[in-house]
Every structure is written in C-alpha cells, then in structure tokens.
C-alpha cells in the first residue's frame, strides 16, 4: 500500500481509536491537516496552542484515555510547552504532534524552525524526531503505548514537512515491544506480606492516596481497602475523588491547605499507607517532621517516587489498582475481627479534631468565595466535573466541593498553571458531552486563556465558568498579607474586563452576582442555560484560604481562621 506520511499518521490514529484532536494549523503541518479533513476525526480548533494541550489534558482525565494535540512548527510548538510540562508533572497521557521544517533545512535556522525535541526533553516522558517516513508508523504506535503505560505522561513527535509528504510502501507496524521499557505492574509478594503485618498491628493508621490511584483506575479497590482495614483516609489535591468525599472515613485533603483533621492525623499516625503519591513539598511541609513517628508503606508504579522525598519502611513498586487488589485479597485471609476495637480510640481522636476545627467561613454582607463553591456543590449535588484555574479558586474548589468519584476534579496540580481550567473544561466537556462541566476560576487566571471562550462557542459546548472575582491575584496577595506585611506588590488587578459583556462578545451568556442573596439565583440560571456561560461573582476582596501551613513548616502547624 503506497501512502504518504500524513496518510500513515491517519491510519495509526484510527487504529489507536482517536476520535478527537485539539490543534491549530500552520505551514509545516498543511499536509497532515489536508489528510485529517478526509477522516472522521473531530478536530477542535483552539485559539492558542497552550489551550490545545490543556484541553487534551482535560479530555484525557475526563475520559480516562489519551489526549491528542496537533500543532505546527516553531511558535506552534513552543506554545505547547507549558501544557506539556503541566501534563508531565500530573502524569497525564497526551500525544503531541508538532510540525517541523523539512529534514534538509533542520539546523539552518529556517523560518519557524525550533528544536522542540530539545526544548521538551525534560518535560516529556519521551519524544521523537521522525527523520524517515518509514519509521513514522512505528513511532506513533510506540508513542501511544509509552504515553498510557506505566506512569503515564506526555509524548511528543516532531514530524518534518517532507516526512509527512513523502509517499512510501506502508506496512502496518506489529505489536510494540521496547527492549528498554518494561514498567512493573505486579507488586512483589514478599513486600506485600510485610505490609499486611504492619497494617494488622497498626493502632493509628492513615491512608494517603494520590493521583496515581485515579490514573490506575483503582478507586474501587482503594475504597474497599480503606473500609476493610477501617483506616481513615486523606488524599493529595490530585487524589480528590479517588475515595468518596462523603464517606465517614474521609479526612479531607492533606497539605498546605489541607483540613485540620487530615494534617493532625498525619502528624499523629503510627502507620501511613501511601498509594500513588510522590510526597510533594506542598503535601509534606517540613519533611523531617512529616509523620516522624510513623512507619510508611509506599505503593507507586514509578520507582523514582519512592524514597525521593521521604524515607519509607516498606517500598512497593506496582500498579496501584493491581497492588490494592492483591492487598485486599491478602487482608481477606487475615482475622480482622478485632480491628474495630483496636481503631476505636483513634477514630474518636480524629472526630475530636473534625469537630473542633472544621472548614468554616462567615457569610456576611459581601459574597464569600467559599459560599459560592458550597452553593455550587449543593445545586449540582456533587455530580459536576470541576476544572480549576490555579490559586485561591483552586483551593476553595478542593475544600468546599466534595468529590465522590474519580476524574471529576481536574486541576493543574504539580505545575500550577493559571489558565488551565477553561481549556481543560472544553476537553472534559467533549469527553463527557452529557455531564455538567464547571470551571472554577479567579478573575486573574481566567484572563490567561480567555480566548478559548471562542473555541467553546464554536463547538457549541455548554461549559460553565464560575469566576470568584476578588480583583486580586489572591493567593499571592494572601502570602503578601501574611508574610510581607501587606505590601501588595503587583497583585491588585486594577483593570479587568467586564466579564458579562466579554461573555456576550464571545457568543456566550454572561451573568453577575454582587450580593449574597443573588448567588443561588445566578448559579441556578447559569447552570440551567444550555450554552457556554460565564458567571461573575464579585466576592470579598481580601478573603484568604485557611487552614494554611506556611511554606517549610511542619504540616501540623497550621494557621487557622
């Protein structure tokens, strides 16, 4: 079969089951776009390439599949870098195709040439420059395999214009096998039995789950495990939804803005069972004092995550779902009848923390941002897919919305990208057309990728944007208030667009609430409108996120309201 590189690419994309691509055309990818138009693949034309990657990220998370991006060379490629770095930090499977100048011009500083493989080497799981059309089919297959297997991540493929245009005799690649890449899925049984005996003997256990559980689709196993061993459970930001946020064993999120009881439980536990986490500094606070008296069992598919930041008693390398499934089977063979009695005092202690310092705010004359999120939770019955921007809006979305299912909280956790939420909501809505998708945003970060409102309008996506508008870059302002004697250097957004008019300009619906009693009305109207909607909530300007652990302090030393 004689096919061009571009046609080969389409063949493999179809084989991989790709239905949606996020992209932006350009000179170096005209041949690919020409072929793309002949397929059934839905191409979403974004307004900026960064938006394409975040949208693919949201799509991958909401669907549990792979996100695909197609952009041109040079600036098209460099614009994807922030999105790629974010997906890399959060281990999201994305395949990014970038155009490149023809092979004979590479290295000549040609028009729109950039060494994107060199630029993205530290922020991709792997990347390729395709120099020969013969290799294209195999490389694309490899990329999809690498992106989804083991600890997932973004893979970039740079395709020179002539590689896409050259016609060759095409034989479909066989099954992918990489000699140097074999992720460990099955846990070591000896390590598991060590874990079992620690779990049985623990008086004060805490389970700490993270994004790894969501990625491994292991929520069911995790929930079964926690209930079986009667252990309270906390998650990182990335782990929200891996365990029902309404379960009695749920402690709330851990870390810098974690709940009082989650952080106190972590400080006091005698065994931490960490699953699919990497002990980020926003979680641990001062590492020397993090669970200083506890033994730690750490389950993760990526060996580099283990022993990186925190010393571990029992390291277990394996897929979170497979490992938890095995642990559940092993626990079933044990006599666990006295566990209830053994854990009673511990659970009572935790209840005390829960009742003394719950998450709270005082709703007076001006709208509190927490109130908006809480109302949103009530009105959507916790069923919406929530995406966030980064900063205070992200933390309130994590604290006051409760997630019962995985893949419902989509946020740029590791890299913390402002401007993530709107394009991610577009991706999530395309993956789940029948779900309600809401971007909880701040007035600062929404402006970083606001141009994607046009994409949402063009695709007829009924996404909802809730802006918690405080006129500040709130999280930095909060740090300035607490640690820099209120010197608000460059954090006051003195000028912002009228978001209601802006929504209308984009062909969306704009609504605004300025008083507490309007919040519910605006939310109800916005959520029931079958179009893209921006809801602008004018909130208390200097509200801060609490609890807060100052950077570098032990996580049990929290600033409370």
């Amino acid at each position, binding site marked *: 079969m004689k096919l061009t590189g571009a046609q080969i690419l389409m063949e493999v994309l179809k084989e991989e089951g790709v239905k949606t691509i996020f992209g932006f055309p350009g000179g170096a990818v005209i041949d690919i776009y020409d072929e793309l138009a002949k397929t059934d693949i839905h191409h979403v034309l974004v307004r900026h390439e960064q938006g394409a990657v975040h949208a693919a990220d949201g799509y991958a998370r909401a669907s549990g599949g792979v996100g695909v991006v197609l952009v041109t060379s040079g600036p098209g490629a460099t614009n994807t870098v922030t999105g790629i770095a974010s997906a890399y930090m959060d281990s999201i499977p994305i395949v990014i195709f970038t155009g490149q100048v023809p092979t004979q011009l590479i290295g000549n500083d040609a028009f729109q040439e950039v060494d994107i493989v060199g630029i993205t*080497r*530290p922020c991709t799981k792997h990347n390729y420059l395709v120099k020969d059309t013969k290799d294209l089919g195999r490389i694309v297959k490899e990329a999809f395999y690498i992106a989804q297997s083991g600890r997932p991540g973004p893979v970039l493929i740079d395709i020179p214009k002539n590689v896409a245009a050259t016609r060759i005799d095409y034989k479909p690649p066989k099954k992918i096998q*990489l*000699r*140097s890449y074999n992720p460990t899925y099955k846990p070591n049984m000896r390590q598991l039995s060590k874990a079992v005996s620690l779990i049985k003997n623990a008086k004060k256990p805490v389970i700490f789950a993270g994004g790894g559980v969501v990625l491994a689709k292991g929520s069911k196993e995790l929930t079964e495990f926690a209930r079986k061993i009667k252990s309270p459970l906390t998650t990182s930001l990335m782990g929200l939804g891996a365990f029902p946020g309404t379960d009695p064993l749920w402690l709330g999120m851990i870390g810098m803005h974690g709940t009082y009881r989650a952080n106190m439980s972590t400080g006091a536990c005698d065994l931490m069972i960490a699953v699919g986490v990497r002990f980020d500094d926003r979680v641990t606070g001062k590492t020397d004092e993090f669970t200083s008296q506890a033994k730690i069992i750490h389950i993760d598919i*990526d*060996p*580099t995550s283990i*022993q990186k930041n925190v010393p571990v008693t029992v390291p277990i390398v394996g897929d979170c779902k497979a490992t938890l499934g095995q642990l559940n089977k092993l626990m079933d063979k044990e006599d666990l009848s006295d566990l209830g009695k053994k854990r009673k005092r511990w659970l009572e202690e935790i209840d005390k923390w829960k009742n003394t310092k719950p998450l709270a705010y005082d709703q007076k004359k001006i709208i509190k941002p927490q109130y908006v999120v809480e109302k949103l939770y009530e009105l959507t019955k916790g069923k919406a897919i929530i995406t966030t921007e980064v900063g205070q809006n992200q933390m309130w979305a994590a604290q006051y919305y409760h997630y019962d299912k995985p893949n419902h909280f989509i946020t740029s956790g590791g890299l913390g990208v402002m401007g993530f939420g709107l394009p991610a909501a577009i991706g999530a809505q395309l993956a789940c057309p029948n779900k309600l998708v809401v971007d909880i945003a701040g007035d600062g970060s929404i402006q970083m990728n606001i141009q994607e409102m046009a994409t949402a309008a063009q695709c007829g996506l009924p996404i909802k944007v809730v802006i918690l508008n405080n006129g500040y870059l709130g999280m930095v302002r909060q740090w300035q208030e607490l640690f820099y004697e209120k010197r608000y250097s460059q954090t006051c957004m003195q000028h912002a667009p009228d978001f209601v008019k802006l929504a209308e300009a984009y062909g969306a619906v704009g609504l605004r609430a300025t008083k507490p009693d309007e919040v519910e009305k605006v939310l109800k109207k916005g959520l029931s409108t079958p179009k893209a909607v921006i809801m602008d909530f004018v909130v208390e300007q200097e509200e801060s996120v609490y609890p807060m652990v100052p950077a570098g302090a032990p996580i049990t030393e929290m600033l409370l309201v």
Partner: protein
Amino acid sequence: MTEEKHVLSILVDNQPGVLSRISGLFGGRGYNIDSLCVAETTEPNVSRVTIVTTGSKQIIEQIIKQLHKLINVMKVIELTGTEFVQREMALIKVIAKPEHRAEILRMVDIFRCKIIDVGLEHYTLEITGDEDKLSAILNLLEPLGIKEIAKTGIIALSREPKVV
C-alpha cells in the same frame, strides 16, 4: 550524609539524542558528573556509558532510578561496591628540556607508559591506569612543566564472569 564517588555503567540505545537525555537529567536535577565516557558495544545498536558521579547514598539511588526511567536506557549497573576493573587514559604533553629528557624517559619506564610524539621542546606521553596512577605521574611531571593534557574519563567493567 557522606558523599562518595560512584561508578555507573549504563547500557543505552545507540541513537542520536540519548546522551543529551542523560546529561540533561544530571543537569536538570542537580546531580554531578565527574566524568562520562560513551562508545558503541559489540552490538551496534547498543552503547555503553560509564559515568562517575558523586553523591550521598540516597542521591545515588535516585540517580540510578531516574536513569532507568529514561526510555532509551536498558540497564544501569552500579559498579561501586562490587568487584570491577577501571581504567582511564591520559595524553600528556610535557616540556622536555634536554636536561630533563633522561628523567622523563625513566618515568615512562617506571609507569609503563609510552611516548607517542616527540617535538623539539616536548614529549607527548600516553598513560593508562586507574585514577591514582594518573595523578601520581601528573604530580611527578608537574615540576617539569605540563603544556597540555587530555583525559578520557574512567571506563569500567565488572569482574564477574556473567555479562552485564
């Protein structure tokens, strides 16, 4: 924690860009490279990289795991702590004044090295050995005046009979 020198032997795909993935990993994560050697093995699509690095036990463990994580890395062997042989080669251009020539020749003899180039005012020596041997001869030649030096960095192999 105490920092120690470690010799790592790494088998990688013989492909463009692999070396920059490895050196980029060291640079990006703030690890040290004391020396780095790379060349093809008997399998043309596999290269062996020998890296000497310094770090605490915990850092070395991370380095090994991070190297493993690179898709093009097949195998990482930590030679330090096992039985292994190591060699380094140096080319030394030393000033050879007439009154010093006999002494230089004596040293060449004692250290079992070779003179591979002779100029009007210099000799170029080729020496192979471990780090101690190289630094010993450099110390002795220093007073005579060393014009230039090129070293390969360490290459190493395990003493064990099995092939790694």
